[in-house]
């Protein structure tokens, strides 16, 4: 197994952010785009543990916070929690199963977007959006799209970092 450097994780998150700001906006389906930053955070949490997941999540969230119009720090919190929770699952699931990867990414996309909604609703008085409407119009399309995109990305990452060997050690 190769050791993944922190700088490399950060670099990967930067690339994901760059793609998310530029190209992925042209690949929207039903108004949703795949959240590849979330895919990276879940991957690092799932394969490298809770601490790595938390660190990657906070770093990714802070990067996103620079570029979005949300309250600053909200994405660092959401992605940090998501990475940490993904890390808790690292020893409890068979990570190389594509179905498991799909289900986990779908779950964490729904979780992070719902947490985002709860936090924004708590802080913003002017928000005129119901959760159910948000869930059906945004969360479900984004969750499905992100999960579908996550499967080949996971396969590529596992090959790239030689993480198949880790499975045998666990």
């Amino acid at each position: 197994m190769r050791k993944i450097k922190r700088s490399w994780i950060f670099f990967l998150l930067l690339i994901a952010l760059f793609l998310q700001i530029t190209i992925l906006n042209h690949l929207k389906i039903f108004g949703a785009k795949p959240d590849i930053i979330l895919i990276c955070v879940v991957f690092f949490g799932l394969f490298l543990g809770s601490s790595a997941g938390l660190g990657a999540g906070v770093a990714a969230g802070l990067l996103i916070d620079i570029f979005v119009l949300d309250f600053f720090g909200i994405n660092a919190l959401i992605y940090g929690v998501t990475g940490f929770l993904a890390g808790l699952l690292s020893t409890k699931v068979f990570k190389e199963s594509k179905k498991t990867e799909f289900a986990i990414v779908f779950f964490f996309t729904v979780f992070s977007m719902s947490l985002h909604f709860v936090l924004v609703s708590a802080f913003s008085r002017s928000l005129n959006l119901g959760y159910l409407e948000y869930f059906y119009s945004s969360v479900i399309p984004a969750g499905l799209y992100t999960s579908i995109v996550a499967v080949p990305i996971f396969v590529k990452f596992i090959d790239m970092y030689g993480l198949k060997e880790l499975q045998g050690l666990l």
Partner: protein
Amino acid sequence: MRNQKSRIFKALIAISFLVFLVVTSKTITNRTRTALSDTANLPLGFFNSVSSGFSRIMPFASLREENRILRERINLLNRKIDETKIIYDENTRLKDFINFKKTIPYFTVPAQVIGRDPSNWSNSIIINKGANDGVRQSKAVISNKGLIGRVLEIGRRSSRILLITDPNSKVGVMIQRNRQGGILTGRPDGRCKMIYISLDSDVAAGDKVITAGFGETFPSNMPVGEVVKVDKEPGRLYKYAVVKTAEDLSKLEEVLCVK
């Protein structure tokens, strides 16, 4: 003496042979040629076919090279056609923009979209013009098709635009046909919703939505979009309308910032 006789004899024989040859050459040569050609017919045919085969194959090498060059040229020309089409489209778009800019009664700053929101929650864009170029805080951003949003954050050389499809965006709008007012708010999936439409209003699908012009942010009568669907908000005393924006905000490339 003897030698001389023998030499003369040999010369005579040679001469008589030559004379004989000259006399009978036609017949002999004909026969010899015929016999030779008959015998050599099969191998000659074989070699001939092989050589003609070679003569056909030989240009193939050069043809292949020529084919490669022509293919490259086709690719190059196709690329040039694509590039020309892109430039043509851009030119048309910019011409429309310039014409539109001339017709509107306010000063604007043209800008290019250089970035978009990375999240699935908010809808905003980053443009390549800022305070140095005359972009002003909270001013409307438009395209030649209609309203896009407003300037939310401003830097020296870039600005962030809050699109009308963002959940935090609120724009005072009205239905062009009956002047029925309402508030236009965005949805994370990129749609817009006009809320606070009174229950007795006759708003219908296909109605044009324009800006009401209340306040100083948005100019009045600016096209915003078209009503797609009207419904009653459950548990509320007003109706809402789903509005399709006049401009496809996911494909924006150039915008105009009102000064």
